[in-house]
């Protein structure tokens, strides 16, 4: 009984925590700026797609979308190819080389911030 109540309570709570902010955003997409600030939780007074029209007409959303697709496509393809090849090699090279390489790779994937600093290397 305690189990069922706590289950339902916690699941409902977290579901609401996800649904409410998402709904606010969806409603907000149909509101004017003044409406968003004055009545954040209310339903939009008039359902319309003006903000979306603005999005496509003014800001260059098509281009950014294509950029996203390019980045994702390249990184997924390359990651899949390289990491599967690497994993195979490392698991078969049980020598010292394999171990050293593995620890280096594991270390490198943790050092993103350091890399962002080192990227300056490429600048003039």
């Amino acid at each position, binding site marked *: 009984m305690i189990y069922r109540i706590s289950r339902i309570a916690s*699941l409902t709570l977290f579901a609401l925590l996800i649904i409410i902010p998402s709904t*606010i955003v969806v409603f907000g997409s149909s509101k004017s700026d003044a409406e968003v600030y004055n009545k954040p939780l209310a339903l939009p007074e008039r359902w319309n797609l003006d903000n979306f029209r603005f999005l496509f007409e003014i800001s260059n959303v098509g281009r950014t979308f294509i950029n996203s697709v390019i980045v994702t496509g390249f990184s997924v393809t390359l990651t899949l190819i390289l990491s599967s090849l690497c994993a195979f090699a490392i698991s078969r090279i049980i020598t010292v080389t*394999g171990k050293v390489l593995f620890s280096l790779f594991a270390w490198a994937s943790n050092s993103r911030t350091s890399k962002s600093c080192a990227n300056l290397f490429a600048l003039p």
Partner: protein
Amino acid sequence: MGLPAALIFSIFYFIPFLANLRYSLTKWDRITEPEFVGLRNFVNLLTNDDLFYKVLGNNLRFTFLVVLFQTLFSLIFALFLVKNSRVNVALRTLFFFPTILSSISVGMIWLFMYDPNFGAVNLFFTRIGLEQFALNWLGSESSALYAIAFTQVWFHTGQMMVIYIAGLQQIPQELYEAAEMDGASRWQQFRNVTWPMSIPTTIVVMAYTTIQSFRAFDLIFAMTQGGPNSSSNIFAVLIYQTLFNELRIGYAAAQSIFFILLLVFVTVLQRKFLNSRYEK
């Protein structure tokens, strides 16, 4: 056989790292020539930088809170949703939803939720009669870091929950049947079957969460930029600010080297601790 890999690795990772090491020994603003200063950056960092220690404390608190609550909540939700019923699958999808959002969108959503004037969080607390909780969540020094930690947990719990569910479904059903035959209560089943069998998953989840939260950047950058008065600043953001706002590249390089050492230290410590628990 390992040579090509070693070559590629050294070009893309090791040489930049060495470059970083070299810059950490210089004073450079990207305009004039780098000037060699020896270990002065590191000495300054450790002896003469209050902000650095403040950020260190923030970073450790943030990571501790996020790891604790994210692991706990993802385990709880995974336990509740481990069976493949239709409702459970729908809820899993819902809980995973924040993970597919981009972190800037999440930052914007919660920036709006936490807003002191028209945010839903304060509106909620006022409506249910808890006005004392209607704070300026991101604008006050005492609460900004915790508000962001909450958002981080909200953002990534679903992802960890999915890893946990995959781990929990690997536990053989016979163990539960045997436990039931022995008259074990639900708590005893969890204590003696589920928990010991899910420790490998816990190790993965905790290691991943630690790294993820230790170098968290995007949410903090989107929501407070480390503000007010650096009370929600953590290393990744600090390094960015030293690098691009103050243009102290040598100093930022020294900071990032210290950051990496700290991250390696924390990860190794955690692995040691968790693995010893696992072997026991």
